């Protein structure tokens, strides 16, 4: 009621009424053309349409039919908005469902790579070889992406766990390998598109709840038992994050889409990547390790400096 047409409620029969009438005509014409456009872009309804709809009952000369039409229109807009929102969400939500873009060519190329680099340990039919490597049936493209793009596979040797190293295959070869493994056994796959979305703060809370107990609140990682390690997250890319959550490599649990929804996964990635890129406002971050690295700096730089000072003052005394 506080809009441009506020005064009209008191006196609708003045010349200003025509202006309102005009306005309503435009509104009627634009009913289907203009308002849905607003909802599709997701922008806030601007002041003008809102003012118009409010003035409408005050200048309701054209009759209740127009009101009904308006209401139907509003309903249509609402439905349209819901459909478009749902569609957007579905587009995100379904993106972790199997991706059908694996072409036959990719699969063939992946098979070629598998047979030269993986078959010795994982077997001719992905069934795994005893005392060498586990079966790859059902691990999915996400697992392949994580293991190969971080350089963990092909493995350098048997050990407590596989450490990150320089990747042996480029991005395209990784995708081909993933396509091949996926075509045989199925399993979770990496979604396409932007893997960062949503509220950074919520992502942070989810990270502290689900991830920090091993990777640490500052993403530095930590040793697990018997030489196994929860790696630091400083070098992980968006895709590797997502793939790790989907596939649960090594000691890491699997975070399926029922445990962390795709949006929550994107929020976590958003939080971690944003904080990794953030500067340290307090000076040198000392690798953000915490009290241990602070103690190191304290004893070497702090105590070292004051000890040098007392030696200096003491030396002058002699």
């Amino acid at each position, binding site marked *: 009621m506080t809009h441009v047409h506020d005064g009209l409620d008191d006196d609708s029969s003045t010349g200003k009424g025509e202006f309102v009438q005009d306005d309503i005509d435009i509104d009627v014409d634009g009913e289907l053309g203009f308002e849905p456009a607003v909802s599709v872009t997701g922008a806030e309804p601007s002041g003008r349409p809102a003012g118009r709809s409010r003035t409408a009952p005050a200048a309701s000369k054209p009759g209740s039919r127009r009101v009904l039409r308006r209401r139907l229109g509003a309903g249509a807009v609402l439905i349209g908005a819901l459909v478009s929102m749902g569609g957007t969400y579905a587009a995100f939500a379904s993106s972790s469902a199997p991706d059908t873009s694996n072409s036959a060519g990719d699969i063939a190329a992946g098979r070629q790579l598998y047979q030269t680099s993986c078959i010795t340990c994982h077997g001719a039919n992905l069934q795994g070889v005893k005392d060498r490597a586990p079966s790859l049936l059902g691990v999915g493209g996400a697992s392949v992406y994580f293991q190969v793009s971080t350089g963990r596979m092909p493995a350098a040797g048997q050990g*407590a766990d596989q450490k990150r190293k320089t990747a042996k295959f480029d991005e395209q070869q990784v995708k081909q390998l993933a396509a091949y493994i996926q075509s045989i056994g199925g399993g979770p796959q990496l979604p396409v598109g932007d893997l960062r979305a949503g*509220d*950074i*703060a*919520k992502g*942070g*809370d989810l990270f*502290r*709840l689900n991830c*920090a*107990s*091993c990777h*640490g*609140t*500052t993403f*530095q*990682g*930590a*040793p*697990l*038992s*018997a*030489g196994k*390690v*929860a790696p*630091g997250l400083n070098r992980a890319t968006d895709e590797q994050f997502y793939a790790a959550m989907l596939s649960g490599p090594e000691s890491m649990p699997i975070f399926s889409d029922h445990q962390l929804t795709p949006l929550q996964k994107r929020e976590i990635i958003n*939080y971690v990547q*944003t*904080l990794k890129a953030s500067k*340290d*406002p*307090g*000076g*040198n*971050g*000392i690798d*953000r*390790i*915490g*009290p*241990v*690295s*602070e*103690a190191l*700096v*304290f*004893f070497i*730089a*702090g*105590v070292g*400096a*004051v000890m040098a*000072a*007392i*030696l*200096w*003052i*003491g*030396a002058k*005394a002699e």
Partner: protein
Amino acid sequence: MSTTTRRSNGPRTPQGKAAKFFDDRLNLAGPMRKQLNKVFPDHWTFMMGEIALYSFIVLLLTGTYLTFFFDPSSAETVYHGRYLPMQGIPMSRAYASTLNISFDVRGGLIIRQIHHWAALMFVGAMLIHMFRVFFTGAFRKPRELNWLIGLTLIVLGIIEGFAGYTLPDDLLSGTGLRIADAIMLSIPVIGTWVSFLVFGGTFPGDVIIERFYIAHVLLIPAILAALIGAHLALIVRQKHTEFPAPGRSEHTVSGERVFPTYAAKAGGFFFIVAAVLAALGGLAQINPVWLFGPYNPAQVSSGSQPDWYMMFLDGSTRLFPSWEVRLWGHTLAPLFWPTVVLPTILLTLAIGYPFLEAKMTRDTLPHNMLQRPRDVPVRTALGVMALTFYLVLFLSGGNDIIAKAFDISLNAMTWGGRILLLILPPLFYIVTYRICLGLQRHDREVLEHGVETGIVKVLPTGEFIEVHQPLGPVDAHGHGRLAYAGTQVPKRMNQLGAGTPLRHVRGFFYPVKEKPEIQAALDELEALEVDQHDVQHQLTD
């Protein structure tokens, strides 16, 4: 005549007039003169306690600034401040105000960081000072009371630090608080009640931040200040100890007067300590609570360590086997041994040591002279043994970070720590004991045979001998007659003021140059000496 008397009657400078104003009313001149003329011995190791004192002053100043902006409240709020990654997250007002101090208050972050670094320095300097006092025997009669005050200061300093880093109520410190609660709970019989008493109910409750705050800003600092005052008053009363040297005795003190030399040095040193702390606060980030998140009992981070002065207890917890004792239907938690029993034993040993040593050595005399560590091998070796024990525990407190950094299995770190904790201290006892004896023997050798001059002679028989410079009168065999006195023995010719090109080099960072005319005279003298030396050589040859 009369005019001069009138002039000398009163001071003429403004400072002098002000001093007279107070002296006329308070009669200060006599006692002040006595205090300002007090003599304080000068040795670089005597300045370690000063570091703690100056850190304490820095702590008071920075801490007061922080209280203007800190909200010590457990009440929950939703953050809507400048730091985006915490937007809309529920947290305590204590944590929210810490974020505000870090991001919104002018100078807030650097003051917070200086405060935290100064806390590390406060406890660190106290501990280093304690070891100096221990290794030099400064705790002996009549100074046992000051030793006890010092120990109390260390314990209170550690508690104060713990309370302080708990205040922001972040995930890291909250985890530490949880462990502190577990330690309280592990005490037999009274544990549960102790925990309820501290937290006002079950952990975490809603009063702990408020309670820790008042303990941190009022209660403990007041006690610390009072004890520091007592500590210093005792030094003034009992006088400072000093190392034995020619001309020093048990009944005198030598050194600089408090005013002006010592005051100038101490004042300058305060600014050096403050500068080091400010540099650390500005250059190195400490306790970035915004990265840790607010405390939430459901969350925990790997690599959760306390500040360094608590880390030895973390280490003892990590190393101690998880022995669960069941007695008369009650369970003794494994945590009880490494976190309650062990520190109690360590503290008891530290409290009792001066009395124990006096009893064992049957020494009832007062001592104002220090002892060099080498001259009391058993004490020195015991101290090194304790230090080694402490260091193994300390390093084990960060054994996960070390394991990660050096790619060692955490299990190996734990077992390595357990084995080293038992083997290293006795080994270091033996090694230190032998080093002390070796140093003593070398002193005796120099007293007997003199300082090695570096001049090697060929005797007519073909034998090579090194010429030794005796330190004093010698007997018929050329052996020195100076008795071993536990003082520093010169080992190099330049310590005798002779013999090496380094003899005119003075200054710590660069040689102090004499004025040109003095230098010229010195050069001339030196040239003359060399000439005479050559002449003598020719004569003897």
